[in-house]
């Protein structure tokens, strides 16, 4: 292999392929989408095994968060692609006639997709579906922190997909840096704030547009609810905290905000749910993913090391270092200046912050950077409205967690520190397309007042034209209206 890991050759080949125009045809796009469908269908058991060994994900969880999500996206893309690709026509003011206008979606060119380790399959293949639907050639860079998934994708993709147009390049930071030296027509990045800044700075050198899917501390507001609803709500919180890759998810619940008086009920209910879902023996937890690696395991352990924080543990807190497993852990009112309340947790620790009045949660959330997702369990319509208008986040979900991810018609993406740009459904197609404005005129009916030499008649004509005052125009042309001298 060359010292640049074959990057230059790959990028050149992709550019040639793009120039040949092959990826623009709808048939090529559909054939690649169908190939993805075949790929996941024929290899799903391998995927389940890999995800189980690499992250300890249960197959049901893997299906829900990875395989099923990809399948759903491909199905949608296949059924909508003709409609997405068709030019959008629209009306023009009479003044422009005879003319027509349309918006034409065209592929951006050669794009780079950088994936993340927590959903090593879907966070690579889901954006890929958008890139292919839009007709681009693609380099995929799966995360080196999930090495088995990465190498499996690198082996598998060329078997199913057009390897002249879609390439997987594996590697760590060194390879990423090399990739970022090249000129791309779009970079789609999922990962941390820190690396997001590096990606955008590199993109600036080539004026490359970027989509940054980052994370942040996603809060869950928990208002007073009737008993029956508390049960459902805690299930949903538990699922949003521990159910998706053991809290290692960008839209996972990071911390909760509740009124003091219901904190005890909530904690009791959460404990019960944890027991049913996962059991209570750290050495024998079921249905829970593990922590990705030693580094993150230690990072999470360090969060709890602060004695002021450790004192707040009301449930869990045990570790299984050999298997990189951390028990679902609940903390009540850890100090707000502790690291756990200022860094994105990205693991199975759940701080619960108590407030005198649930309305204070708005101020609390606004004092931190804008999260990717905001969850609120409440039946109070006014409070809902208040949350919607007074806070800012990538998305807001009322009375549930994570599920907004599965809604194709909702854009998925952040704002502020949680990133920018969006995808899913049609938004994925748009993320990798340029909407070209096309205006077509004929040679008939030349409006002389457009051109110099200028005079008052022409000025008056244009004034009327800009106001779309057709009656005035006719009067002016008939000489029945005097041009104003200005």
């Amino acid at each position, binding site marked *: 292999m060359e010292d640049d890991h074959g990057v230059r050759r790959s990028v050149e080949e992709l550019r040639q392929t793009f120039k040949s125009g092959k990826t623009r045809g709808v048939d090529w796009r559909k054939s690649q989408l169908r190939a993805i469908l075949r790929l996941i269908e024929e290899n799903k058991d391998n995927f389940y095994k890999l995800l189980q060994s690499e992250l300890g994900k*249960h*197959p*049901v*969880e893997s*299906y829900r968060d990875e395989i*099923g*999500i990809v*399948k*759903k996206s491909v199905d949608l893309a296949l059924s909508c692609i003709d409609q997405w690709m068709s030019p959008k026509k629209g009306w023009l003011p009479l003044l*422009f006639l005879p*003319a027509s206008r349309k918006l*034409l979606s065209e592929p951006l*060119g050669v794009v780079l997709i950088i994936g993340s380790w927590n959903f090593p399959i879907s966070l690579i293949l889901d954006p890929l579906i958008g890139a292919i639907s839009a007709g681009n050639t693609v380099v995929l860079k799966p995360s080196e922190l999930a090495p088995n998934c990465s190498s499996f994708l690198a082996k598998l993709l060329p078997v199913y997909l057009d390897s002249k147009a879609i390439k997987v390049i594996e590697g760590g930071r060194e390879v990423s840096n090399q990739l970022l030296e090249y000129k791309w*027509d779009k970079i789609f990045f999922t990962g941390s704030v820190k690396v997001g*800044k590096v990606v*955008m*700075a590199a*993109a*600036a*050198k080539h*004026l490359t*547009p970027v989509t*940054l899917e980052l994370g942040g501390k996603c809060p869950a507001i928990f208002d007073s609810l009737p008993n*029956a609803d508390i049960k*459902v709500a805690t299930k949903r919180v538990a699922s949003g905290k521990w159910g998706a890759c053991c809290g290692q998810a960008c839209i996972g619940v990071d911390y909760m905000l509740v009124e003091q008086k219901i904190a005890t009920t909530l904690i009791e209910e959460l404990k019960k749910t944890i027991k049913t879902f996962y059991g209570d023996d750290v050495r024998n937890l079921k*249905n829970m993913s593990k922590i990705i690696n030693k580094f993150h395991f230690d990072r999470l352990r360090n969060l709890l090391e602060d004695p002021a924080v450790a004192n707040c543990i009301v449930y869990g807190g045990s570790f299984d270092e050999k298997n990189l497993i951390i028990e679902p852990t609940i903390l009540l009112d850890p100090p707000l200046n502790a690291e756990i309340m200022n860094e994105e947790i990205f693991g199975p620790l759940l701080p619960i912050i108590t407030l005198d009045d649930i309305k204070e949660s708005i101020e609390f959330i606004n004092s931190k950077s804008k999260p990717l997702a905001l969850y609120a369990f409440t039946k109070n319509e006014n409070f809902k409205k208040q949350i*919607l208008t007074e806070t*800012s*986040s990538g*998305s807001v*979900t*009322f009375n*549930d967690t994570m599920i*907004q991810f599965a*809604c194709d*018609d*909702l854009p998925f993406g952040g*704002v502020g*520190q949680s990133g920018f*740009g969006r995808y899913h459904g049609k938004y994925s197609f748009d993320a990798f397309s*340029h*909407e*070209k*404005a*096309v*205006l*077509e*005129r*004929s*040679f008939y009916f*030349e409006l002389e007042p*457009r*051109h*110099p*030499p*200028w005079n008052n008649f022409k*000025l008056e004509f*244009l004034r009327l034209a*800009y106001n779309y005052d057709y009656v005035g125009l006719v009067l002016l042309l008939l000489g029945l209206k005097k041009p104003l001298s*200005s």
Partner: protein
Amino acid sequence: MASEEQVKNSAFDTEAANCLVKELRGTVVAGKTKSYEWRVKQLKSLLKMVEERDKQICDALFSDLSKPEMEAFIHEIALIKNSCKLSLKKLKEWMKPEKVKTTLSTFPSSAEIVPEPLGVVLVISAWNYPFCIWECCCSEALRNCSSHVFIAENLLEEYLDNSAIKVVEGGVPETSALLEQKWDKIFYTGNGRIGRVVMAAAAKHLTPVVLELGGKSPVVVDSNIDLTVTARRIIGGKWACNNGQACVAPDYIITTKQFAPKLIDSIKHELVKFYGEDPLNSPDISRVVNSNHFARLSKLLDDDRVSGKIVHGGQTDKSSLKIAPTIVLDAEEDSLIMHEEIFGPLLLVVTVEKIEDGIDFINSRSKPLAAYIFTNNKQLKQDFVSNISSGAIVVNDISLHLMVDTLPFGGVGESGTGAYHGKFSFDAFTHKKAVLHRSFLGDAPARYPPYTAGKLRLLKALLDGSIFGIIRALFGFS
């Protein structure tokens, strides 16, 4: 581009910029700018300003660019007025949450997309001097920041809410001080070199950017066309729009060897009709903005590989900063003028053997902001539209797409990212928040552990959206 103002008093330093951002952020947090009423009030004031002070704006434009009143009216005043009016008419509709469909997998639920202002935004306008700091929402007002902002400062202060909208004038030090701050959006109009600096600065705070840059916008002219109309429209787009100093102005023409003499003759003929025999003294043409740009343009012409190729014009008057409409035929490929954006009254004509070769010529360069073609040949038109990647394509006219509110205005590749105009301007400064409403009913146990094979089947059916599959899974068949 941004050097002449360096020695200005740099009272506006990082600290001042910091204070200014703090004040604006305070206004945002107070929530004042979110209301429909506030936005409407500002838009109305802006409209009033343009209507009441159009004379003053035109005078300023005349003194800065000796822009003819007519041109000032077409390209500045009317555009701002129109977009204000459009915004006033449509704002309520734009601000409304958009209901979207939900899928079976999230049933029962309802979903909407709620537009919200991004926060404190920085608008850096062309010609590097003036910066308007615009606070979210009434993005339409933005149009204000084209060239006439030289005088905009005191006018804007008089008409608009100063706690939310500020103008900072200055050059490089002021820009740098502003770029160090954290913004929620930066909207920059200018060149690619500074565009890169702006985006790199934005990366430090993860600020999204809109970059409205330029590039060499080509015009392909076929031979089967209405020659007079074509010549007039080219002149209109090139010299009657700020004398070529517009990002969408034609930079070069591509035509066949045989047709070039006819086209050039026709342009010459129409130029005389427009500006007379002595264009340097015509009141109907703008001048070059300043001596730096005058020197830059003169240098392009003085190149030995170019000066022999001038087929029309070429006269310059340093004292009045005027350059006559100039046509250069087939300049050497390696000369500067063939590669730099001209941004002035010089027009290149590049000849090709077959007109179809024009497409390859354009594709061998970076993607332009606009690409124009004059032709009656359907096939050629279609090939051009589908094979040329540019911000916009206009068939049989020049620059007219700017006037169409329903078309997005923006570049691709080297000509920038992001788009504005009409609803697109509102969107450029808006975050579209995804909102999903769920009730406590309809809780599918399959979502939760402990996981079983039956749950996997049910999930598959749910994600597939197949009702039949769901029923089968629920009854335990598979």
